[in-house]
């Protein structure tokens, strides 16, 4: 495992950062709160497409999966636990050892790499599943990026892509709500004008050579303080599934 490349003196620092990533009440609380909902969507889409039974112990055995923007491994770890062979990629070098330290403690074997989708595509890597969650609103050129994602999928492969809609409500929720009022996310993490509507994303996906097959909203309920999936309300956070034509 790549854990051997970590400088021993740094481990403690990485451990502290991992604890921060994985503290459900800490800095990444919004991601932890959203995570069960994201996982419900991802697992049901992958299980349906590849005819896997989620009641079995390791339903994603034999699937090669890429988690782009893996951070501390909030999605990579569940996917590895379900049996997928996982590559976690992050453009921020500091996240890699942090994610490695945590996966090792969990007894999970995950291939974390400091790289980008474009570089992986250029190296000719391919996957059955690409998770592209809360990334597309951060990239400079979404079409180039999504085209690289298409190249990363084997024909018949599946990509789950989530982002934030560009609506007055998302402006209020994501900018005023999440970033300023709730102090959930570091200020400046998102820039509202870069947000993409579901129709725009479907158009981009098609132009990238993908076949979008599903769109679903992630809906926050302030009364229960939790997220749920919504077929109708894609007004703020939403997620899509697309396939690379065989």
């Amino acid at each position, binding site marked *: 495992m790549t854990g051997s490349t970590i400088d021993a003196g740094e481990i403690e620092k990485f451990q502290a950062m991992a*604890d921060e990533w*994985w503290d*459900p009440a800490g800095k990444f609380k919004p991601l*932890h709160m959203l*995570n*069960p909902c994201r*996982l*419900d969507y991802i*697992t049901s889409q992958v299980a349906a497409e590849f005819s896997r039974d*989620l*009641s*079995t*112990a390791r339903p994603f055995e034999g699937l090669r999966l890429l988690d782009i923007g893996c951070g501390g491994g909030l999605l990579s*770890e*569940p*996917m*590895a*636990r*379900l049996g997928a062979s996982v590559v976690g990629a992050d453009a921020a070098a500091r996240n890699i050892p942090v994610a490695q330290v945590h996966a090792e*403690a*969990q*007894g999970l074997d995950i291939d974390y790499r400091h790289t980008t989708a474009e570089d992986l595509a250029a190296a000719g890597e391919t996957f059955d599943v690409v998770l592209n969650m809360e990334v597309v609103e951060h990239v400079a050129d979404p079409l180039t990026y999504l085209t690289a994602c298409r190249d990363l999928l084997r024909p018949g492969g599946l990509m789950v892509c989530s982002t934030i809609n560009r609506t007055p409500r998302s402006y209020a929720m994501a900018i005023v709500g999440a970033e300023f009022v709730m102090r959930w996310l570091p200020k400046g993490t998102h820039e509202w004008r870069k947000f993409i509507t579901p129709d725009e994303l479907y158009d981009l996906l098609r132009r990238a050579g993908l076949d979008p097959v599903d769109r679903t909203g992630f809906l926050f309920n302030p009364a229960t303080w939790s997220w749920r999936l919504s077929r109708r309300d894609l007004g703020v956070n939403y997620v899509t599934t697309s396939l690379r034509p065989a």
Partner: protein
Amino acid sequence: MSYDADVLIAGGGLVGGTLALALTSAGLDVILIDPAPEAGGAGFDGRSSALALTSQRLLKALGVWARLADDAQPILQIKVTDGRAGEAPSPFALEFDHAEIEEGPMGYMAENRHLRFAIASTVAESPVRAIAAGVTAQSTDGAGVSANLADGRRLRGRVLIGCDGRDSGTARRAGIRHVGWRYLQSALICAVRHERPHGGVAHQFFMPEGPLAILPLTGNRSSIVWSQPHAQAARVMALDEAGYLAALRPRFGGFLGEIALEGERYTYPLSLSLAQHFVAPRVALAGDAAHVVHPIAGQGLNAGLKDVAALAQVLAEARRRGEDVGAPDVLARYQTWRRFDVTALAVATDAFNRLFSNDNPLLRFGRDIGMGLVNALPGARRGAIREAAGLTGDLPRLLQGRPL
């Protein structure tokens, strides 16, 4: 680091055993740790439990009910009466009949020995790994929990669940404190054989000194739960069998004919105890380890089985998503689900007992009118029946009789 199992359960009683079965049915890997596992073959010790309809559904969904059904007595009617020893019951009585709800009987009565054996034999044929030893120490870290056993073994899991009863060592070692108080009452527990059939009717008499429950068992037998002030309970307990029956008879009334003791009799001081937290890092509590309530409504085991259903569902969903089943946010979902309900039950049974366990004429008048009113209103009565049958609240799947 590797794990010996996903879930370690401390305590293999009624709650621990059903939880092990529920988690295994959802594909989780479980080790059940108990220093004195159920061997079967025990004679009747006089103890029995009320099973709400929802609890019966859970046992059915887990494959336990088929082994218990022949030994379970359906409760077809509940009669609640305000009474004083040696007096005719108040004309204002409450009657609840299962015919008013669609789901069948309101619940069942089963002897604890049958329940224990039905659960233990189902566990024995399941993939649950049972270990006959006690937990002596536990320690947690960010990725799991380790339990030291009395036989020197050390086991590692993602979460340790304490089903080890009212003096839960799991709770104590996790630093979870309990709040509550002792009642000035003790419960006298026994079973009686009687001359006339009970017709599946459960009786709850509210006596000034404390409530008396007569609950139907199979055959011409009933289970007695009789709450009394400590001194009085001790006095009755010290009597010989004939004296004990002589004390019980006037309260019992003549409607079941001659009575005789069946099995042993017990007494224990009543208390209310709620864990301040149902979860701690890598630890969760279920059943009496989390809450002990007044036996007035026969809801102790039913509340424990609700814990089982909710916790098993939370962990099953987490496993299906690939989440770490012992992660703090996963365990917090269980606590959120159960704590409000359990606190409400504790408050309700406490208030009920305080309202009925006295002879204040004004209160007596008030509660008689109240019972008369509830009885006169079909909607309120159906609501009370559904509550007793466990059919209210946000029902976990197992309590609806559905698999996880």
